[in-house]
């Protein structure tokens, strides 16, 4: 699991990452749609989450440019942990209940081995619940 936490020095092509090109395109499209329709900033992190995973995810969320309006979806496929972190302004539109629902459907997809599909449908659910900008 240590090889996941490689330093972020060089620019990755994304090809050593967990997604194929087609999946990357789908994810990009889904995130752009979610951002545009809700006005919130969605962000997806796929990688290791050191214990405690919730705190690590919150720390990552805090590193974003606009944490209050951001939603971070952090997935660790090897530790099998999903964390959704909503900023202080974002959580007014996306209550924890809605996040939990989306998390449930996403983990159902992840359990079947479908990372990209789970993320895309989870994004659609969250964007749908957050309502229009």
């Amino acid at each position, binding site marked *: 699991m240590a090889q996941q936490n490689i330093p972020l020095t060089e620019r990755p092509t994304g090809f050593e990452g967990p997604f194929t090109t087609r999946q990357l395109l789908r994810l990009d499209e889904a995130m*752009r749609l979610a951002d545009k329709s809700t006005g919130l900033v969605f962000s997806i992190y796929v990688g290791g989450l050191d214990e405690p995973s919730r705190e690590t995810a919150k720390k990552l969320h805090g590193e974003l440019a606009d944490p209050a309006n951001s939603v971070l979806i952090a997935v660790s496929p090897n530790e099998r942990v999903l964390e959704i972190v909503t900023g202080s302004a974002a959580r007014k539109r996306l209550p924890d209940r809605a996040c939990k629902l989306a998390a449930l459907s996403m983990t159902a997809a992840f359990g079947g081995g479908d990372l990209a599909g789970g993320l895309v449908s989870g994004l659609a659910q969250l964007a749908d619940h957050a309502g229009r900008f």
Partner: protein
Amino acid sequence: MSIIETLVVFAGIPLAVVAVIFGLVYAGGGRSDRRYRPGRPFDFAPVWFLSAPEAQHDAASNGHAALTGANRMALTKAEAQVDAAPGEPIGDVTGGASDRW
């Protein structure tokens, strides 16, 4: 028909058909190495996607700025803000959900 002909017709043709179908099935590449199977170790480089990186990003970055300079600028900008405001600002509570599978 001679023995050779019999052999070719009744053994060679089915074998050829099997070989063709085998080739078609596995010519796709057998994408099992990329597939995520929960519980099995899955090697990959971590990625962090933002859909719309902030204004100052280099022209070469792609749509999903996976860990490029834009994110690093975002990181340094956030760090500067954190340094400027010591102590937890009121109302800076995050929400969300966690789950496992």
